[in-house]
C-alpha cells in the first residue's frame, strides 16, 4: 500500500508540475462534459421521457460515467500508454525491479483532466439530477467501483499488445467503443444486448448497473457492481501475467505481418 501511495504521490505531483496547464485541462474537461449533456437537454425539451427515464436520470448516469472515467485516469492513467510500452520493449526497466510491474505502470501517470471529470460528476449529481447530499456516499461508492471496471477493461484491451504488434490504435478504438456504450442509456436495449454489456463488454457495470442500484435502492445490484469490479480487476491482472510470459524485450524493430 505504501508503495502504491508513493507511486500515486509522484505521478500526481508530476501532473501538477505545471499547475496552469493542469487547471486548464480540468476546466476544459468539465466544460466538455456539460456540452455533451446539452444534447440530452435538447432531447428532453422535445420528449417527456425515454422509456421511463427523464433528464435527471440521464444526468445521474453521465455523472457516474464521469466519476468512473475521471477517477480511473487521474489515479491509473498509465493504462493509456501500456500498449506502446509493451510494443517498444519498455517493460524491461520495470521487470528489473523487485516489485510487480503492473502497479508502477498504471500509477505512473496521473492525468489532471480526470479531476475535471470528477468535479463535473458532483455537479451532475447534486444539481442536474437533483439528488440529495445523502445519496452522495452511495454515488461515490458505485462510481469508484465503475472506475475499477474502467481501468481493468482498459488494461485488458491494452494487453492485446502482448499478442498483437502495433495494436495500440486498435486498443484505443475498442476503449472508445466501451466508453461510448457506457455513456448512453442502455435500458431501451433488448435482453441479448444487455447480457453482452454485463459480461463480455462490461460497459453496463460502469454506469447502467450502478445507476439502477442507486435509483432502485436495490442492494443486490450494488453487490453485483462490487463483484464485477473485483472480477474484472482480477481478470486484468491474470491476462497481464499471461502476457508477461510471452513478452520478449528488446529492440524497436516492428514485426512484419
Amino acid at each position, binding site marked *: 500500500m505504501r508503495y502504491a501511495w508513493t507511486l500515486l504521490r509522484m505521478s500526481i*505531483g508530476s501532473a*501538477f*508540475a505545471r*499547475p*496552469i496547464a493542469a*487547471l486548464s485541462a480540468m476546466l476544459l474537461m468539465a466544460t466538455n462534459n456539460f456540452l455533451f449533456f446539452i444534447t440530452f437537454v435538447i432531447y428532453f425539451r422535445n420528449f417527456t421521457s425515454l422509456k421511463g427515464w427523464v433528464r435527471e436520470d440521464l444526468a445521474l448516469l453521465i455523472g457516474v460515467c464521469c466519476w468512473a472515467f475521471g477517477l480511473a485516469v487521474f489515479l491509473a492513467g498509465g493504462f493509456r500508454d501500456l500498449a506502446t510500452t509493451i510494443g517498444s520493449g519498455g517493460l524491461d526497466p520495470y521487470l528489473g525491479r523487485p516489485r510487480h510491474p503492473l502497479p508502477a505502470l498504471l500509477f505512473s501517470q496521473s492525468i489532471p483532466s480526470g479531476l475535471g471529470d470528477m468535479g463535473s460528476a458532483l455537479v451532475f449529481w447534486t444539481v442536474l439530477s437533483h439528488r440529495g447530499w445523502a445519496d452522495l456516499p452511495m454515488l461515490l461508492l458505485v462510481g469508484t467501483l465503475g472506475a475499477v471496471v474502467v481501468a481493468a477493461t482498459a488494461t485488458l484491451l491494452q494487453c492485446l499488445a502482448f499478442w498483437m504488434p502495433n495494436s495500440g490504435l486498435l486498443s484505443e478504438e475498442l476503449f472508445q467503443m466501451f466508453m461510448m456504450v457506457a455513456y448512453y442509456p442502455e435500458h431501451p436495449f433488448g435482453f441479448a444486448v444487455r447480457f453482452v454489456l454485463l459480461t463480455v463488454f462490461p460497459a453496463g457495470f460502469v454506469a447502467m448497473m450502478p445507476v439502477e442500484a442507486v435509483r432502485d435502492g436495490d442492494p443486490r445490484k450494488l453487490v453485483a457492481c462490487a463483484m464485477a469490479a473485483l472480477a474484472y480487476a482480477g481478470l486484468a491482472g491474470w491476462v497481464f501475467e499471461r502476457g508477461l510470459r510471452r513478452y520478449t524485450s528488446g529492440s*524497436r*524493430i*516492428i514485426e*512484419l505481418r
Partner: protein
Amino acid sequence: MAAIRTDNLTKSFRVRQPEPADGALLRRLLRRAPAIDLLAVQDLSLQIEPSERVAFIGPNGAGKSTSLKMLTGILVPTSGHAEVAGFVPWRDRGKLARHIGIVFGQRSQLWWQLPVRASLDLLGQIYDVDRTVLRQRMARLIDGFEIGAFIDRPVAQLSLGQRLRCEIVGALIHAPSILLLDEPTIGLDVTSKALLRDHLDGLSRDSGTTVLLTSHDTGDIERICERVIVIDHGSLLMDLPIAQLKRDFLRRRTVTLVTAQETPELRIDGVAAVAVEPYRLTLSVDTTVVPIEKVVATALERLTIRDLSVENPPLEDVIKAIYRGETADPRASKGPAGATQL
C-alpha cells in the same frame, strides 16, 4: 562567394524561470515567474569556403544547434546577418532548401513505416529531381553508402547505423552543395562510426560538397574534417585547422592498464601516472614525446596485461584547455587556413 558566411549572428531567447516543483502550489499559481534573456549565440562571425569540411564543436549548451538552426532558416536570429549558398536563410528558406542537405542524428527525416526506397522517392519528388536523374543518383548513392541490402525494408526495422546511412542518402538525393550534419554518429558502435566516416570523407572529396558537422566525438572530427570551429557559451572561441588542434590540444592520450601485478609501474619519458590502484594503472601519455604504440609495446613487455584501453581526452577537457590557453605554439594569424584565438 563563401558557401557559408555569418556576421555577428546573435540569438537570445526570452524565458521564464519556473518555480521549483516542490514549491507551494498556490505560490506557483499566483506568482508569474520573472522572464530572463538567455543568450544562446553571441556575435558569431565565420566564413566557410566551398568544398571545405568543417567541424563545429563545443560542449553541451554551447550554441551549436541554435547556430545550425539559424543557418538552415528554421530560426530567426535576434540580430546579425548570414548567407548560406548566397541566400539569407530565414528569408529564403524555400530557395535555400534546394541547396542544402541536413542530417539530424537524433531525429529522422525519413518516413518511419515506409520502406527506405519509398522515402527516397518521395524526397526526390519534394525536391523536384528529374526522374531519370533521380534513378541514376539513387543507384549511385545506394551503392556508395552500401544500403542496397535493406533499401526495401521499413525504416523502423533498421539498426541505428543503417538508418543514419539512409538519412545521409536522403539528404543527398537532390545533390546539395552544402551538407549540414548534427551529431550524425551519436549512438553508433565503433564499426558503424568508422563506416559512416569513410563514406562522408569519400563523398566530400569526390563531389566537392561543403560539409559542416557538429559532433562530440573527436574521432568524427579527425577523420572527416580539415578545420574546426570551437564555440562555447554562444561565442566563437577558436577557428583553426585540424592539424593544429591535434598538435596543440589532442597531444595527450589516456592509457588504462589492467594487470596481473598488484602494484603495476611503468616509467617512460613523456608518460605520467594519473592513478595507481591494485592491478590497475592509468597513464597520461604526451604523444609529442612518445608515440602510443611504444607505450603499449613497453607495457606488454614489462607487465602482464589483462586489459588495455586508449582514450582521447574528452572534448570538454579540450575546450577547457582552449579556455586556459594551454597551447604549445599559439599563433596570431586569422582566417580559415590559420588559427584564430579569441
